[in-house]
């Protein structure tokens, strides 16, 4: 199982007009098992970019290739077998059980006129166990907490046996404990060899375990590269419009963290 991703000059707009372009010229490559953290201000098109990569939306131009195979010429079912997509918010109109939701990930391997086989259900159980939600299998999905629901959606994407997993702000609306739980799952999936592209609100997530980070801003990828090199105080200021200090924490934690500086503290915190 590999999972090399090559994205070349991807662009998208809801119409053909130049002023409606959401982003253009997006290009980056990932080795199998790498984690790419996609940052950017609200409304910069992070979700749209993920949807274009996963082919939920059709890009206006450019290409996405997984292990050298171009997705442009691939059937939706085949794409779903290579690439799993975990949406940011999903509301089910009906109270399906967790098991029924997770097994939906097998859809691309189930023919038009049949329903999940024993094998498909086994695969669903396998991913539920892997994610640690097998005890929730019979629970209706409208009685899950936000964190549990996010894990269910990740488990569902895993039943696709993907080489690449796209996650759209998997930690939004979650408390700190659940955020870290999700991020640790994401880390362990990447160690299993799954390439991960994750949109996030928090630059800290990039420092946690991203191999590469990209900042989507003003309709293009402003910068991308290693988190330590890309996420400087200047870049964070120009991205979020506030002053953010990047501080290296030692004491066995050994990573950088981002600390927003409040306006009232600016004069004191600043070195003259």
């Amino acid at each position, binding site marked *: 199982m590999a999972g090399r991703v090559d994205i070349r000059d991807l662009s998208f707009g809801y119409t053909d007009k130049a002023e409606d372009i959401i982003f253009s010229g997006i290009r980056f490559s990932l080795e199998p098992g790498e984690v790419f953290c996609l940052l950017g201000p609200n409304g910069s098109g992070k979700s749209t970019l993920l*949807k274009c990569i*996963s*082919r*939920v939306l059709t890009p206006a131009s450019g290409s996405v290739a997984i292990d050298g195979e171009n997705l442009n010429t691939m*059937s*939706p*079912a*085949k*794409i*779903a*077998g290579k690439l799993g*997509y975990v*949406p940011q918010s*999903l*509301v*089910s*109109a*009906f*109270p*399906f*059980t967790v098991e*029924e*939701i997770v097994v*939906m*990930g097998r*859809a*691309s391997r*189930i023919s*038009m*006129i*049949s*329903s*999940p086989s024993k094998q498909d259900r086994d695969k669903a159980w396998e991913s539920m166990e892997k994610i640690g939600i097998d005890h929730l299998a019979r629970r209706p999905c*409208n*009685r899950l907490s936000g964190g549990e629901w996010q894990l269910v959606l990740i488990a569902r994407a895993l039943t*696709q046996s993907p080489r690449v997993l796209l996650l759209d702000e998997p930690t939004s609306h979650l408390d700190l404990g659940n955020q870290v739980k999700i991020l640790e799952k994401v880390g362990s999936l990447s160690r299993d060899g799954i390439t991960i592209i994750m949109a996030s609100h928090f630059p800290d997530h990039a420092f946690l375990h991203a191999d590469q980070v990209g900042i989507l801003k003003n309709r293009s990828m402003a910068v991308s590269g290693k988190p330590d090199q890309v996420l400087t105080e200047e870049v964070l200021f120009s991205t979020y419009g506030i002053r953010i200090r990047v501080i290296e924490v030692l004491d066995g934690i050994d990573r950088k963290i981002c600390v927003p500086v409040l306006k009232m503290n600016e004069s004191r915190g600043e070195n003259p």
Partner: protein
Amino acid sequence: MVLASLCLGRVTIPFFQTLKILFSPVLSLDPDWSETTYSVVMDVRLPRILAGLLVGAALSISGASFQGVFQNPLVSPHILGVAAGAGFGAALAILFFDNIWMIHLISFLFGLASVAMTYALSRVYKMTPVLMLVLSGIVVGSLFSALTSLLKYMADPMNKMPAIVFWLLGSLNHVSFKNLLITLPIFLSCMAVLLLVRWRINLLSMGEEDARSLGINTEALKAVIILSATIATASAVCISGIIGWIGIMIPHIGRLIVGPDHKYLLPISMVIGAAYLVAVDTIARTALTTEIPIGILTAVFGAPVFAFLLRKSQRAS
């Protein structure tokens, strides 16, 4: 249910005699019944009950399918304007032809035409988003309702107008074996298609974008489901008039029994819907000396039952 309904009516026929009449074409039995009794069972009640089974099953399975595709448990099979279109077609046919075949045919065609209009109206950027479909359905539905009112207003108030009004209220009393035979293959093939793709309705019910990310060609799947459910509904409406509430209420009862998985929901809805409509039709035939239009009865029973189900599901969640 079917047997009880065969026995009951203006003339009550003993249970065993009914059974014997029913099997008389295949078994050689001594006829101990009169011509009229035979005719009541075989020519009047049997086709009507078969029609009740088919219409009840078709409306319920279409309702359950539409609710899945539209991600909304409050949707009825008439949402895309089938009933309004078919009603207008029937009114038109009653006004100009007054022939039962023409009424069936024209109402069927207008039922389909109204959904085709809805579909065309909702198409944007080569896609048909669910919200646009619902709104277009409202537009097309109210257009045809207005046109039907116009026809009623113009119709002869002594003769044609009551015929139109009575047809719109729904009834199974125009059904004969002949028109059942013509509609039967249509009913069966539509319901068979829906049953075949029923698990995939689960996927569409999570939203189109989500289903697409799971590798589903949502436009094609949606078209197949909507087309089958629409033809089944239009066939039901053209032989029985507008019978409301079944398509919205029965899937709810089904969900209480088997849960939301469409794999089980569609078959159970068909069975419950078929039994329910035959039961209500039996009441429509027997409760008063004149027949009560079945559309009125399904609404009278449906509204409180539905209110109860709504309250119950609210408490549960």
